[in-house]
């Protein structure tokens, strides 16, 4: 599937992992800390005249300055919204967002969120080179 990203639209990245069990555990952590079920992602808005690959690398370059992982999955704020997931900015760290869940114990909701991060190719982090599918 090809990702469409319009100028000004939010490009979202989540570092490995985004499997349902991990999403559920990460959301549980937020429930205990803040009572709001959510998972963490990073995001930036696409600049005018910036292509998708450049935006991806700009985002992962920023994230790699503060975090580390083997792989990353990209999506957009639009894709999350279409599936019913709201996001909210939650800095610091810079460009950090929360993806909100209604009930992290709802397996269907967690699976739906995991599927969004599986829509597009898994990428190596931080190079953004395509990684072999799992």
């Amino acid at each position, binding site marked *: 599937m090809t990702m469409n990203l319009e100028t000004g639209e939010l490009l979202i990245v*989540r*570092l*490995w*992992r985004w499997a349902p069990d*991990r999403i559920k*555990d*990460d959301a*549980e*952590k*937020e429930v*205990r*800390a*803040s009572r709001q079920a959510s*998972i*963490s*992602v*990073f995001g930036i808005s696409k600049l005018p005249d910036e292509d998708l690959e450049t935006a991806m690398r700009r985002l992962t370059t920023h994230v790699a300055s*503060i*975090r*580390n*992982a*083997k792989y990353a999955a990209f999506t957009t704020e639009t894709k999350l919204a279409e599936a019913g997931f709201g996001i909210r900015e939650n*800095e*610091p*760290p810079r460009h*950090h967002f929360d993806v909100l869940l209604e009930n992290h114990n709802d397996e269907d909701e967690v699976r739906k969120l995991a599927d969004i991060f599986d829509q597009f190719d898994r990428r190596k982090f931080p190079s953004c080179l395509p990684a072999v599918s*799992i």
Partner: protein
Amino acid sequence: MSTSRFNITLPARVVVDPNGAARGDASLSVALLEDADRIPKVGELVFAVQPEDDEPDYISSAIVKEIDHAKGLIYLAVDWAGFHEAPQRRGFVVRQRRMQGSRIAWKQSYTIPTLESQFTSRNGNITSDRVLVA
């Protein structure tokens, strides 16, 4: 055959989320107590782990800064730049044959490849300062 007895406490392994940050102090990461293979102590050096199913785990080190037992959360200062693929943790016995005069003598050692380095016990003596001896 004689045996050597020694007790080794490996650092705890804590699964960390590379996307998240602690609210109020973004330099810290939060993990569920259930994400640790044993409950560590504040100030303890632990392994920060991003587990993999079909590949070596991605691991680094972290220092436990706070434990909220009521909420079941661990706050960690993770060395994000230090992540690397972990060698397998399986230990094995190495036997070396030596000649003592006209006799053959066996020297036996037990080697455990750890997540960061390798340490060896020779006749019960731990030879690496990276190992915590209980």
